[in-house]
């Protein structure tokens, strides 16, 4: 039998069965990952994801894998952390105090040095093809029914076009916030008061009732669901627009990233499922060190405050925290004091839900030019994120007559990182 090596035969059999049921027009009731997560979809208990995306490619040498005093080590030193024996860059003094809540993977080799391809690989766990992002998967399988918020919210100050949901459908694609600005069109049109707005919505419903008689409901129901979700967002307008507490702002920092992280905290506390915050500006082909001082200077304290808040409020157990980029940066320092794109040997940090804290997975060689132990790529990481969240990534998405392996069947999770 030449087939299915590396895939689990039984999963495929199940997938096939469902698939046939779907094709015959039957109801698909056995969405595997969904049912696993169903028990936890109780308000306030459900599993969540916080993604902090350091866009442009943070330097591993200036963050999670410092090599001070070596040929490519750069000017910054390593500092001890709250985990004995674990050192990170001195650019992360606040985060260092909370490393007992996080783990580091130091042995990532993507074999990709392109921003978009690296980003897609890190988000989809596949090198190519149309697959959903981690956030869309979380939205699909983890979001509680009747959630007040969309399942996947991305707070970013700059446009990057992500098509995140693939075959999971638009309701699971990311809802983008431009910074703390709420989504567009939350306010009723000018000249319309609440009463008039309610009247037109009611009238719309009356038109719909007429139309639905004797017709199949699946399409009209999802159209309606989008209106309900829109109404919920509109109802939360003041929540989105609420100015952050002054004390919080002092702790998090008054910059965009501080405000964005405060919004992320508020969203997670209000049962958002996946919140992604993008911190821009790590693509330091020139002046790498001054820029990492600037960017990580902004990131460090804010992130540490957010992490400790999630911990103190008991959310960390149910929230997977990912700090990641599309790749790292070259050990070699170029003539502009820059570091270039480098997917060959770099690091990310993970913590919270399902992740063994305080661990260091893998290592790079002394100069940081190659992975020395436990090489992984984004395919392995992808399985790890999902399994940490209790989603069996070796199962299939079962989408309208199509069964698609959730994670790359040729990759496995980093088992020793899973709690």
């Amino acid at each position, binding site marked *: 039998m030449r087939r299915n090596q590396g895939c689990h035969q039984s999963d495929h059999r199940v997938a096939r069965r469902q698939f046939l049921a779907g094709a015959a027009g039957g109801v698909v009731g056995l969405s595997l990952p969904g049912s696993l997560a169903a028990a936890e979809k109780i308000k306030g208990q459900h599993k969540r994801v916080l993604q902090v995306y350091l866009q442009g490619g943070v330097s591993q040498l200036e963050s999670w894998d410092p090599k001070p005093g070596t040929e490519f080590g750069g000017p910054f030193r390593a500092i001890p952390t709250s985990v004995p024996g674990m050192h990170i860059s001195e650019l992360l003094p606040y985060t260092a105090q909370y490393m007992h809540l996080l783990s580091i993977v130091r042995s990532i080799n993507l074999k990709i040095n392109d921003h978009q391809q690296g980003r897609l690989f890190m988000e989809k766990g596949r090198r190519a093809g149309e697959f959903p992002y981690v956030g869309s998967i979380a939205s699909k399988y983890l979001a509680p029914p009747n959630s007040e918020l969309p399942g996947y919210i991305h707070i970013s100050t700059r446009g990057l076009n992500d098509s995140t949901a693939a075959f999971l459908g638009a309701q699971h694609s990311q809802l983008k916030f431009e910074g703390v600005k709420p989504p567009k069109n939350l306010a009723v049109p000018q000249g319309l008061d609440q009463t008039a707005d309610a009247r037109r919505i009611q009238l719309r419903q009356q038109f719909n009732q007429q139309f639905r008689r004797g017709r199949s409901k699946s399409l009209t129901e999802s159209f309606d669901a989008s209106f309900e979700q829109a109404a919920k967002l509109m109802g939360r307008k003041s929540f989105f627009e609420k100015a952050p507490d002054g004390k919080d702002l002092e702790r998090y920092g008054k910059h965009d990233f501080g405000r964005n992280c405060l919004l992320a905290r508020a969203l997670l506390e209000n049962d958002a499922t996946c919140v992604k915050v993008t911190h821009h500006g790590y*693509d330091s082909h020139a*002046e790498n*060190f001054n820029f990492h001082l600037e960017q990580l200077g902004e990131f460090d304290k804010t992130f540490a405050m957010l992490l400790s808040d999630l911990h103190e409020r008991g959310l960390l157990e149910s929230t997977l925290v990912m700090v990641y980029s599309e790749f790292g940066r070259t050990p070699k320092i170029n003539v502009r004091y820059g570091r270039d794109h480098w997917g060959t040997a770099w690091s990310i940090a993970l913590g919270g839900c399902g992740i063994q804290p305080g661990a260091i997975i893998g290592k790079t060689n002394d100069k940081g030019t190659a992975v020395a132990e436990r090489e992984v790529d984004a395919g392995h990481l992808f399985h790890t994120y999902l399994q940490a969240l209790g989603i069996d990534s070796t199962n299939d998405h079962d989408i309208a007559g199509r069964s698609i392996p959730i994670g790359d069947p040729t990759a496995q999770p980093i088992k020793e990182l899973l709690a």
Partner: protein
Amino acid sequence: MNVKQPATADAIAAQKPLVESTLIEPAKTHQVAQFKHSVPLTTCRVDPTGRYVVAGAQDLDIQVWNLQTSAQRTLKGHTSWVRSFDFSKDGNTLYSACWGGDIKVWNMADASPEPTMTIAAHKGSARWVRLSPDQTKLATCGNDLLVKVWNIADGKLLQTFAGHERHVYAVDFHPDGQQLVSQDLMGFIKIWDLQTGKQKRGIHASLMTGYDKKFAADMGGARDLQFSPDGSELASAGITNVVNSFGGIQDPIIMLFDWNTGKETAQLKPDKAFQGIAWGVRYHPDGFLIGAGAERTGKGELWFHKPGEKEFFHTLKLPRAARGLDLLADGRHLVVPHSDGSVCTYRMTAKAKVFGT
């Protein structure tokens, strides 16, 4: 010996058969010597008596070359890259500042100097160190946003000047010894009164910084700071017109300020094609100004400017990025630290001729 080849050894101690031109002609500046380290350099300084050149590099060491003999020594002790130096007037004491925040003091008379004192000067990088004109105090600045003044005798902190809101890139004493000047990432220049311990006034060199919207970060600051010998003018080297700072696309600039009025008197920029950073500026005792810079693809240039003129009167193209600049007391030689690990000396006269030809 073949004098047509650029000398690779010391050329300051002129070889007997050569007749050195002594007339200073900046337009005839040429390389006369090269000292090589294996790691890209970050800065350099010559001692006031012309015996040594010291250089910081992208490692933890300080390289010292004897300008007469080319003998090389390595000073070990810093825990990070060295970015700034100053010498005592007699050239016997070296002060070095590193990205780790420490200032170290070295007795250059020792055969193999060890730090005689270490001052943990700043939390975060100590970017700059300067000795006071009366040789009693050190001024330093750093990423803790502070400017500090130290007693060099015992390393004790004398004064702290707070007020910069972003990383402080450079600091210097005014030649009158009564004032300090410092400049930060955002181009803010602050003038501090050593008597009162307070800020006296400020100059905003807003041209010398830029916010890159795409990357959401600021870039700027003084990469070198120098007073004219009489203290009437301040020169600051850095960048302007930030287009894509992450790719190094911005223009080098040297700005001149009238010290009395605080008004800018010149914006000196090289040719438009030369995009990068101005890393060094020096006043020549004869009154002209010299600048040095690195282009984004790794080339370098030296620039020469006469007072009152709007443009450089001469530019010397260099194959390697210039990451700083210093001037020998003889007024004829420049030293430049390069990105390829070499320190080169350049002589601002016509080339030497072999006697009798």
